[in-house]
């Protein structure tokens, strides 16, 4: 029989509720989401695209958080392989799932933006093709997880995909520079530090990026906890 103190310790080690920090990220993110929307709708129109350019405030944070999420999956997959602690695998899984949501948002808003500006919803140009491949790889990540019943083998196989799949993130990001593409190059170029954007638009974009990052952090912590509860049920 377990003593009262031991039960308490077990509960602390295996929480079944999100902690305060998770609620802070989620609460603040949801609270600031309408503020970000207001800033996006108050930002000036673009001289060529008019109000269409405002899709950027969803499209760019979605794509960046997708890239970031897949990077976190890469990092925690590596940590899992080195330390063999299932906790790392749960963060990798959570981040890949949230990354798919954000990357999906970037793809959908991108298609809605492409039709009125480029003239088509989709074309097989380098940025779009590499991003579609990226998306498909992480869908495969979850199908692979579902297909393997042995938990340890599942975690190792998933970690391999989480590490190898990440190769495509820098390829997707730099595709617009490496190859001839229809997609424009980066407006905030992280490789040169150049910014080709009106300050008022930049502020709105950075604010939305901040809000999306808060939501991402909240979602990942929440999803990792759910994964921990799932793991416990699987073991029991």
């Amino acid at each position, binding site marked *: 029989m377990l003593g009262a103190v031991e039960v308490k310790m077990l509960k602390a080690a295996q929480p079944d509720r999100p902690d305060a920090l998770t609620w802070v990220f989620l609460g603040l993110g949801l609270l600031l989401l309408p503020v970000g929307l207001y800033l996006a709708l108050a930002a000036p129109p673009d001289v060529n695209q008019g109000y269409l350019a405002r899709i950027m405030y969803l499209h760019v944070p979605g794509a960046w958080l997708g890239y970031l999420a897949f990077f976190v999956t890469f990092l925690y997959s590596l940590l899992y392989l080195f330390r063999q602690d299932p906790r790392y695998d749960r963060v990798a899984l959570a981040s890949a799932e949230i990354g798919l949501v954000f990357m999906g948002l970037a793809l959908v808003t991108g298609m809605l933006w492409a039709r009125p*500006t480029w*003239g088509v919803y989709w074309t097989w140009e380098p940025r779009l093709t590499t991003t579609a491949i990226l998306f498909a790889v992480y869908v*495969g990540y979850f199908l692979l997880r579902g297909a393997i019943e042995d938990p340890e083998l599942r975690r190792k196989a998933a970690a391999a995909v989480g590490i190898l799949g990440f190769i495509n993130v820098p390829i997707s990001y730099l595709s617009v520079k490496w190859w001839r593409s229809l997609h424009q190059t980066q407006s905030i170029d992280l490789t040169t530090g150049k910014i080709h954007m009106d300050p008022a638009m930049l502020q709105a974009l950075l604010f939305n990026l901040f809000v999306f990052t808060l939501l991402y952090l909240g979602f990942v912590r929440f999803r990792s906890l759910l994964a921990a509860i799932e793991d416990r049920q699987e073991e029991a």
Partner: protein
Amino acid sequence: MKAKYLIGLLLILGALAYLIFGGLGQNLVYFLTPSEYLQDQARYQNRPVRLGGLVKEGTVRYDKDQLELRFILTDGVAEVPVVHKGTPPGMFKEGQGVVVEGRFGEGVFQGTNLLVKHSEAYQAPKAGWTPEEVRKLIEEAK
């Protein structure tokens, strides 16, 4: 292995193979420039290609009744005449970067799809030139 996930996994692998070998493999180059096209014209005869370049200033002719758009595509060195059926996209204008999908025939490049490229720079319009004010100006001029 659970069967339904295995089927899904095979689907994804098939899709990936298609994307990598079908979408990209045929041609790693998304579009050809008019110079490249004219240099190796025999190779691209009767084959769908994408041509990319700028719409040459002063060459755009649009027939509203036939919905027929004609312009000259240039890369600064070589020029290719283009005919395209259909209304031009909203952002199509002289000097704009475009990509035309189609094939060569009867002395012109016959576009089936016209795509407009836009720049990565975002600027607010000058005072008095917001979309509403421009629309008002156009309506007043009618």
